[in-house]
């Protein structure tokens, strides 16, 4: 289910958890037939390119600036982006930078994207400032659409406080995302919950499927973080 669509674009407010969601979609993809495109020109740390080595070993192609540019804080994109968007043999997931600012990077590819057909998802975390209410979520969606020249069809609830996430936080996020989807005629696609927290949270009452997220982008002191921080 989560892997529907041959081109999935993941957008959202800054810090909503887009990258973790996009990385999880890619990780669940078929080896040799999945590409993860890192279009994040906003964040200097915690980017999907940090997982490039681990993912390429598993047959998942991460398209992002290469060499020392990979660690640079300049708004540059990989020259391989357009080729990836045209490659209909592969399933392509695009991890877009946060806010309308990050979504602007999509605009120059909007023609190619429309030709191919796409599904664009808005990731919603109601525990981020300026993303807490239905109105704020819809305003964010409208501004991302204006900046990218593309249309958001689906909403993904991803309300969380990392390891401190409670059932109440998940349900609050699902309620806001669900209501925003209803008011705007979009599809309320899924509700993300960190896999490790699922046993503790029981079964949250939400109006969409639960998608268990595996935490890939770890802080340096979290076990298993090694690859991302030894570069």
């Amino acid at each position, binding site marked *: 289910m989560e892997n529907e669509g041959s081109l999935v674009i993941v957008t959202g407010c800054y*810090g909503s958890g887009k990258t973790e969601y996009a990385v999880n979609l890619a990780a669940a993809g078929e080896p040799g037939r999945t590409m993860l495109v890192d279009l994040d020109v906003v*964040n*200097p*740390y*915690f980017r999907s390119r940090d997982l490039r080595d681990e993912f390429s070993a598993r047959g998942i192609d991460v398209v992002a600036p290469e060499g020392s540019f990979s*660690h*640079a*804080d300049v708004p540059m994109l990989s020259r391989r982006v357009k080729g990836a968007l045209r490659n209909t043999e592969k399933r392509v997931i695009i991890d877009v930078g946060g806010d309308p600012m990050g979504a602007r990077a999509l605009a120059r590819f909007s023609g190619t994207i429309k030709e191919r057909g796409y599904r664009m998802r808005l990731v919603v*975390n109601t*525990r*981020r*400032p300026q993303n807490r209410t239905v109105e704020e979520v819809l305003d964010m969606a409208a501004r991302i659409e204006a900046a990218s020249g593309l249309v958001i069809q689906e909403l993904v609830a991803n309300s*969380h*406080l*990392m390891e*401190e996430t409670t059932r109440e936080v998940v349900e609050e996020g699902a309620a806001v995302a669900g209501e925003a989807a209803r008011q705007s005629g979009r599809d309320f696609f899924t509700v993300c919950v960190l896999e490790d927290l699922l046993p503790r949270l029981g079964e949250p009452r939400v109006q969409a499927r639960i998608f268990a997220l595996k935490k890939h982008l770890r*802080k*340096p*002191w*979290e*076990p298993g*973080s*090694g690859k991302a*921080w*030894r*570069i």
Partner: protein
Amino acid sequence: MGDKILMKGNEAVAEAAIRAGCRHYYAYPITPQSELIEYMARQMPLAGGTFLQAESEVAAINMVLGAAACGMRVMTSSSSPGISLKQEGISYIAACRLPAVIVNVQRGGPGLGNIAPMQADYFQATRGGGHGDYYTPVLSPSSVQEFADMAPLAFEIAEEYRTPVVIFADGMLGQMMEPVVFPDSYAPQKDPSAWALGCKREGEFCNHIINSLFIDPAVLDQKTRELFAEYDRIRQNEIRYERYNLDEQPSILVVSTGTAARVVKSAVDALAEEGIKVGLLRPITLWPFPYQAVAEAARGVKKVLTVELNMGQMEQDVRLALAGSCETAFVGKAGGLVFTPEELTEIIRGYAS
């Protein structure tokens, strides 16, 4: 208390500063600190304050001096190379005995270095930083919550002792997200009429001359001694540190701060499960440094390790604290690399056996 929300350290410290009454902020962007200035650009005008992106770091710190001289709660921020540029102004602010808060979200160095997290500005931060005979209190957070809580604390210390205060963060603390909660109220600003221009007390203007030029050596000597009398008071009242896993006698003591201390905690926990007792002393104030607390924690241990994200700077303070009473070793990483818990666990295990 409001709801717990998820924020980057850079955003959280900016929000906390505004809530604590900071109404003037002047800075120049630099990675990995730029979310702080972006947040201020968006939110400071809404709070009725003044945000200004200066033409340079040098200009920004002199605007800070001006606002502080007028009795405002004022803050600036930057990352390592930008903080170096600000040092002249920080020295002037210290000499003028004005309160101000400076946030350093450190990156890799020397030179332009890179945008990865480091703790390589330790010497600069703890030894004054600019020219002349002075210190600044230095607060070193280890989580997003602590980073946020240090904004009001820094203003309180700055006003109590009329000194610039440095918050010593790094790119990891600035960039990572953690849950954070803000208190409902903050301590009000101390009455600025003791130092600021244009203040009235009992209807009368208080006259102050804000100056750092003292041509007569005897006068400069006197002014410097006044400054150092305040430093004695800071040493008496403001030393802060955390003791972790130190209740039972450990075989190894680790001294580490900030981001590095987070990795040390993971290693301490892992080693505890193996039955190896390792304690952590985490200095929260780097100046004044908790010399006595380090010496006390080191009693009876086999070795004291200093773990830093640099080539060995705080290590010198640890050795001053121990005064040769205990064997020491240094474990560090440069270039913006960060230890993994597994790697650090192995290193510490090596010293314990």
